[in-house]
């Protein structure tokens, strides 16, 4: 390679490094959409017939979350009590709520796993693959064989 080619390529790679670093430092921005819009987009084109929406009391009972603390919260749970499927989307009032959210979701996953492990292995598997995804002011918690699809659609909905 000629000296010139090397120099040019080196500039290119310098730019690539800056690019990769910037991409990794970039944090997701807040989304202004309503929680219902985001939820609809998240659940689109997936068979969610067996999921029933839960009210605030039920949110408190099952997830230990106080609905009034958040800007918006939607929670679906499978109508069959022997199934572990559930979906939760939360819009934070404040970014600092993310850490507590993560803790509560981990607690939920752990206690659900205890309940289903050994009795219903397929449900326990769903919990092993549970998705907890915090993106700026929105967060998703999904236990389902479609959890990854929900996550992809959730991220797309936030754009």
């Amino acid at each position, binding site marked *: 390679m000629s*000296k010139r080619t*090397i120099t040019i390529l080196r500039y290119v*790679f310098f730019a690539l*490094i800056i690019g990769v*670093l910037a991409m990794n430092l970039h944090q997701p921005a807040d989304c202004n959409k309503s929680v219902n819009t985001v939820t609809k987009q998240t659940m689109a084109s997936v068979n969610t017939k067996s999921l029933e929406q839960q009210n605030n009391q039920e949110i408190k009972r099952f997830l230990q979350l106080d609905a009034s603390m958040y800007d918006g919260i939607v929670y679906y749970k499978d109508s069959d009590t022997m199934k572990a499927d559930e979906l939760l989307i939360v819009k934070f009032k404040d970014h600092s709520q993310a850490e507590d959210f993560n803790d509560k979701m981990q607690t939920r996953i752990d206690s659900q796993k205890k309940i289903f492990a050994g009795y219903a292995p397929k449900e326990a598997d769903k919990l092993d693959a549970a998705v907890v995804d915090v993106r700026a002011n929105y967060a998703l918690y999904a236990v389902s064989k479609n959890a990854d699809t929900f996550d992809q659609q959730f991220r797309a909905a936030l754009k």
Partner: protein
Amino acid sequence: MTFNSLNFIFMFLPAALLLNHYLPSARAKNIMLVVLSFLFYAWGDPAALLLLLISIGWNYLTALQMAAEDDDRKKKHQFVLGIVMNLVILGVFKYTNFILNDVLFLHRQLDIALPVGLSFFLFSEISYLADVYMGKSKASHDLVEYSLYVSFFGKISMGPIVQYHDMEDQLGERTIDPYDAGQGALLFTKGLIKKSLLADQFATLFAATAGSTSVLGAWLYGAAYMLEIYFDFSGYSDMAIGIGQMFGFHMDPNFNHPYIAKSVQDYWRRWHISLSRWFRDYLYIPLGGSRVSNRKYIRNILIVWFCTGLWHGANWTFILWGLYFGAFTLLEKFYLKDFLSKHTKFGHIYTLLVVLVSWIFFCSPDIGTAFGVIGRLVGIGASAWADGSTAFLLLNNWFLLLLGVLFSMDIFKNLQTSILNRYKKKGITWMTAVYLVGFVLCIAFIVGGTFHPFQYFAF
């Protein structure tokens, strides 16, 4: 992908060995190894592969530019920029949150994933640039060979950090002596045994003693971690060097029975040897090493140990851990050297205690917890001298602890030699059987146990 997994042992490794054996030319073998290494690296974390490729390109081009540059000043600028970019990459991925939260106290947590082996392969690439700049090595004109140096799957995740000039001649064509490969297979198995039969069980013991508040509990906690990390990391290094041997690479040992050291200085000639050599050759000696005034010497030692600690992790506990060893290095150089060389028994015990305390700093989440444990070692803040559950743990693990202590010492090679000398031809069969049984047990423990990742994987 990791060495102690079934898919590596039974899928990846035999495939790589067979391909390496049957491919006709050295070039074909190299291309295959590079492709397989990229696959190995990207297996769990494909996004990280992009970073690896970009860093390879950057350093490869930088060296070529330096080689084609006649102006010494321009060459120096290219070299400095080359090094700086590597350090910036390392800094951003590894230290951003540490700097934001623990240095600037800004309370912002950014979501940045640390790519596997970043600290290891970037250090390899820095060694390349430095070797070329200092004239120790020639800039590589073969991208495949350079990629192989950086990303060879045998060493990319956790080292050893092989300096470029030490591997330069092995990158082209390698002849594999079957006896050498045989030793490689034995070494790989030894490492696997250290990891799955010893280190992983110590990890369980360590977790079980974490809640203890008695003096005995603190000692068992410290001992469990001390043995866990030794067998974990030296086991990995054995596997790495063994794999290298099976493909015709020769890497220097990374561990030499560190727990029989007679002084802290001796210890660091035996623990993670490739890292201390790297810091010696690329930081300590360029700073002047010991051939300077006492004041500058102390400064050099503290800088090197600060960096060594920081390299291990983005936390003040690690920095403290490094400076702790720096302090003992100075203590020994100025005051204890003669005393220790005359009283080796004292030296052994003193070193073990210093190292035990260092590991407590290393494994604690913060400095307060570390001091709590250290206090309990001598009874400060302990609830009792011993408690029933710790005693039971001791009873439950006596065999493991015995093996741990014995194999920290340099006995295996002597044991093997005496068996071979005593039983001669039959001895060969016996020793082979020992390794085979060991291998099968490793697989049984890998299959049956919960998965424990390698400790240094977080670097």
